[in-house]
């Protein structure tokens, strides 16, 4: 018998998406939908602590244990500490696990060091009020006794001298005696960072000014870009302030634990192994899909909607091995987008967007991230005029609707998609935890292909990916 669907993430009130009242039906509600648990696809999927029986207290317990081992002796009573966070953490599993980690980090710092001057500085993507919304909804403003600030890349900057020249950070991130980096190991936009120095990335993004973020996306190159983050982190300025890092250790099926370290590079190596192994398998498997309708149904901008722990933008590049650094350019990054001239790609190395995606049904996804590339390359039907209006009002998405059609209801959109795409395989990006909601036909295909993908990643791809990143594959045994 087919498994019941996994409950998708709820719509969220936000200025970047439609009012949840407009989300009257979810794609997973159709009778032809089922789910697959990741553990059934890949038996070596790590055990998770969340979601789980204990709920969020499991995250607290893991955090306290991990932080106990961290040296905080450099922080003296009365010192100021900026706990630096990023908005992405709040999109994982409803956001509560990351919020709990942020609470635990504050409590342990206060307990171990005696300082009360602990402030939360939460960075943003391209939606400058998003972390303010999260901090309020998780009551982090109260927990941090009002000492919270959402920091945006247009806020006052501070020059940082690095090995490659001057880069710019956000002043409010660094305006304390110490900084603590609280992040997660979710692979997120692996098409951009290519799992190279993933753990360091917020230093070039969430904590950085527009100049630095533009350097990453325009001045270096698709594989060298993340050096921007490393060069900032390695700068004397940051090293003098850096106390430790605490990470929500993620796998595609949930929170595996909490990892904390004074040595961010050591933590980075562990993140690299986990990211390549666990996420590498599901991404390689998704690359086996021959044809499908992709349903977007999650409270996030189009490229960031989730399925099986990975985001839609990764699926649009699943026709290539995003972890293989010998591949110069994934089918989607801003470098790729930039290299389409008026009449097509400027160079032969520009790969096509995943041709398996025959149509995208946008049942629920936000603006706040330039997404016209997706609707230009993938036939897209948006459900409801309200969602279309969100995109039309978004300065980043003026052209999104130019290439999309609007359906009055999800039923109409799905009917149109089935008729036009001529496939009954559906993959739903709705943030289902621990597994993936798909149509029965797609479930069958994924189950058939999983064993060979498992073997391929373990035996061939993983050792290659780790070698490319200078990480000794022996670390797998040790971890």
């Amino acid at each position, binding site marked *: 018998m087919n498994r019941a669907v996994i409950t998708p993430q709820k719509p969220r009130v936000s200025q970047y998406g439609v009012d949840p009242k407009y989300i009257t039906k979810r794609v997973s509600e159709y009778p032809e939908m089922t789910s697959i648990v990741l553990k059934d696809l890949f038996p070596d999927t790590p055990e998770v602590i969340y979601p789980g029986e204990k709920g969020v207290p499991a995250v607290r317990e893991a955090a306290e244990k991990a932080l106990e081992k961290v040296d905080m002796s450099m922080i003296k009573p009365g010192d100021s500490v900026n706990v630096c966070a990023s908005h992405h953490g709040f999109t994982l599993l409803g956001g509560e696990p990351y919020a709990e980690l942020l609470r635990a980090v504050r409590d342990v710092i206060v307990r171990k060091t005696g300082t009360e001057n602990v402030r939360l500085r939460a960075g943003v993507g391209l939606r400058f009020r998003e972390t303010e919304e999260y901090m309020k909804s998780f009551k982090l403003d109260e927990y941090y006794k009002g000492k919270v600030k959402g920091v945006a890349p247009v806020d006052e900057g501070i020059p940082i001298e690095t090995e*490659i020249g001057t880069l710019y950070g956000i002043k409010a991130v660094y305006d304390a005696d110490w900084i603590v980096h609280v992040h997660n190991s979710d692979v997120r936009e692996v098409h951009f960072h290519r799992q190279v120095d993933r753990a360091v990335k917020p230093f070039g993004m969430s904590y950085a000014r*527009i100049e630095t973020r533009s350097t990453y996306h325009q*001045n270096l190159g*698709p594989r060298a870009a993340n050096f921007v983050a490393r060069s900032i982190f390695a700068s004397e300025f940051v090293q003098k302030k850096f106390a430790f890092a605490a990470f929500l250790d993620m796998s595609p099926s949930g929170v595996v634990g909490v990892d904390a370290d004074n040595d961010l590079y050591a933590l980075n190596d562990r993140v690299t192994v986990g990211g390549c192994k666990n996420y590498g398998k599901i991404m390689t498997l998704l690359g086996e899909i021959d044809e499908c309708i992709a349903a977007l149904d999650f409270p996030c901008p189009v490229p960031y909607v989730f399925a099986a722990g990975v985001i839609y933008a990764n699926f649009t590049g699943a026709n290539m091995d995003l972890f293989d*650094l010998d591949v110069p350019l994934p089918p989607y990054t801003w470098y790729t987008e930039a290299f389409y001239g008026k009449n097509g790609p400027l160079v032969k190395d520009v790969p096509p967007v995943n041709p398996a995606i025959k149509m995208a049904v946008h049942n629920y996804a936000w603006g706040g991230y330039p997404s016209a590339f997706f609707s230009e390359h993938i036939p897209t039907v948006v459900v409801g005029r309200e969602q279309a209006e969100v995109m039309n*009002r978004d300065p980043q998405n*003026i052209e999104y609707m130019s290439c999309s059609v609007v359906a009055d209801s999800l039923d109409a959109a799905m009917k149109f998609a089935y008729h036009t795409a001529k496939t009954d395989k559906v993959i739903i990006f709705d943030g289902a935890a621990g597994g993936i909601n798909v149509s029965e036909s797609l479930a069958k295909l994924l189950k058939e292909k999983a064993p060979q993908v498992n073997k391929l990643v373990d035996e061939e791809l993983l050792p290659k990916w780790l070698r490319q990143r200078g990480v000794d594959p022996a670390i797998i045994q040790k971890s």
Partner: protein
Amino acid sequence: MKLITMVARIDEEKCTGCQTCVKVCPTLAIKMNGRKAKVDVEKCRGCGNCNQRCPSYAVTMEKLDKPYKVFVRIDDLPYEKIEGLCKKAKLNPEQIICYCTATRAEEAAAAILKGAVSPEEVSLLTGIRTGCKVECIQPVLRLLEANGVKPKRPEGGFQWYGRTPTAWEIPEEVKEKYNHRGFYFNEDIKLLDAVREAGKEGK
């Protein structure tokens, strides 16, 4: 090119005169009128920076009755000049340098060749930097520099701080030190060079 569909409106009751909006507006469309901020609607490109950063939530974005396009023509300049400037900035004239508005390097180059001497003027004329507001400052600064212009940073503003390094400027010893960690510097330079040198037909 950008289609302008929105305009910023300031609620004077809520405005405390903090000047944050003045400091972040990419087209310098906001000035202080006494202790209240005032938007020059002709210069507003509807980016929402002021709306997204005002600490008092005093700015709303309103839909324009008549949306209009801003763009700089490229066909009234010799294309070799545009191409020359782009290539000097190590860009292909056809490459997109602003993802929100799909503005190509050639249009920003044309704005500069026609006299724009600051990122603010380039934004006003082309709409670049008025989408996500974050990602396209570097190519604009590179193009201005390639034209021999040293733009002046708006006094006290946070609009931009400075040009930052490019792939071609990474010191050799840095490349050697980090190559083995997955940073494919030279391979990426090869790709960026190929894009810059590519002709119109992608050859």
